[in-house]
């Protein structure tokens, strides 16, 4: 929780510097080849499929607000378990203490729906993201790590910890706000002292518009 307070102080400092700044919006659409793997008492269940989503960011000075939504259908890779619907969304408020570094925090919710039952996961995350151009100004690489400081899931096992990350590159066309993104993302949750492991990973391919 102490880290959460520090992040809030950092955001407050960022908000205090907002006067005279311009809002920079960004929107993107993406497709994610998602794979969900659950290991429980020595058994593994794996689902995969494509999910489609969108995300948007509003930047004002050093502060930014990010929203994302993702939805898709996951089919079982093994066994005879029914297919699931995947719905995921997040709201993150961040601050950039330096140009290449963003600290953000907020809720990240995920739900699996199958046969009228819904399994909900809500993580309260702290994220650190570093981004820097490495091929001229056209290609920017980024890596992001997050850790859940609190979680709520309607599963029997008590929540232990969860963390995840994403790394990839964004190609920006010269003199145009059009961007293309390819990245790999993963998050991993541990419940019940390791009796249940939840891993979600996949490749993200997206296009977007960014007015920076």
């Amino acid at each position, binding site marked *: 929780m102490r880290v959460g307070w520090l992040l809030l102080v950092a955001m407050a400092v960022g908000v205090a510097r907002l006067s005279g700044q311009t809002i920079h919006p960004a929107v993107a659409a993406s497709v994610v080849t998602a794979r969900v793997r659950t*290991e429980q008492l020595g058994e593994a269940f794996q689902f995969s499929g494509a999910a489609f989503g969108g995300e948007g960011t509003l930047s004002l000075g050093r502060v930014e607000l990010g929203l994302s939504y993702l939805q898709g259908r996951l089919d079982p890779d093994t066994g005879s378990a029914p297919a699931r619907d995947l719905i995921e969304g997040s709201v993150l408020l961040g601050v950039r203490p330096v140009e290449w570094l963003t600290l953000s925090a907020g809720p990240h919710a995920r739900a699996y729906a199958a046969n009228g039952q819904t399994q909900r996961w809500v993580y309260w995350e702290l994220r650190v993201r570093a981004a820097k151009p490495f091929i*001229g100004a056209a290609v920017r*690489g980024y890596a992001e790590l997050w850790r859940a400081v609190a979680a709520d899931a309607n599963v029997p096992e008590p929540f232990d910890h969860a963390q995840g990350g994403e790394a990839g590159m964004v190609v920006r066309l010269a003199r145009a706000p059009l961007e293309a993104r390819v990245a*790999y993302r993963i998050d991993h949750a541990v419940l019940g002292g390791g009796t249940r492991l939840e891993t979600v990973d996949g*490749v993200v391919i997206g296009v977007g518009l960014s007015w920076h």
Partner: protein
Amino acid sequence: MRRHLAWLGVLGCALGATPSTAAAQAADSLLVSGIRAYRNLEFDQAALQLRRGVGQLTAAGAPVAHRAQGLVYLGAAELFRGRRDSALAVFRRLVLLDPRFRPDRLVFPPEVTSVFEGVRLRTKTVAIVIPRDTAIPLQDGALRAWLVASSFQTVNVTLLYENGTSFRPLYFGPIGDSLPVQWDGRDAAGQPVPVDRLLLRVASRAPTGELASLLQLPLDLKISRPDTLPWPDAPAGSELRPERAAGGPATRALLGGLLLSAAVVSLPAAVGSHDTPSGPRVAVASAVGVATALGYLLHRPSRPLPANIRANESVRQAWRARLAAVQAENARRLADVRLRVHAGDPAAIEAAGP
């Protein structure tokens, strides 16, 4: 108030007057009274006053026209006094002073004008008409003088060094009424004049070949070479852009790509997942690797930068144009060497007797 102004005027006139102007005024009044006496046929009185007046004018360096007027009246007065020899001497002096002078036939009777003509025809001398200051281009210019003869004669026009040795002959031959002579500012070998003073000497000879008179004119010379412009400096290094790419962007692309690929591949381990298929990660890492390779090729070190090369070429072109303009201007200035000539006062040199 008026008295004060009058006194101030008198004082100003008294302070402004100089001995030479006072002498000239006295000589003028002598000439006037001499001419009046001549017209009253008082030739003795006229001759006395005119001789004194001419003497004072000569001493004061009065203009030739003034002195010539006094001399012609003096010669006429001497003639009518019966002193023909004196009249001849005065007329000869007048011809030597101004070979172009002719008595006014409306003023002087034929007895006077015929005697004067006789003297003029026998007296061989010339006047040199030349601008006081001249600047002549050495490339293709010339100093032009005009010789005006008293009568038909043979002249020898020569430029001399100050010590009297010959520098360059300009003309030898007959002269009727007048003759132009010119000098191109160079010696006989075509080289620019090496000294800063020459003498223009005109020797007049009678038809018998006898030396009749010598007239000499000093010429002060100065070669004027215009300053040349300094060449413009070549473009400094700070004005030019690098024409070859530095290694920084390529290295950054390579290291950044490698780092990003490593981050993608090791991401599951970083979040504690050890049983994750590598396919998606490798695909993304490969895409990053391809982009890295392309970025390295696009930003490879020492590759030519055409935009910078073009920009530098335009800077160099502008410098070359400025240089060519300065060189052309300097060539024009170097070719425009001028000889400045200041002509002094002519002096008659007595010809040695036979």
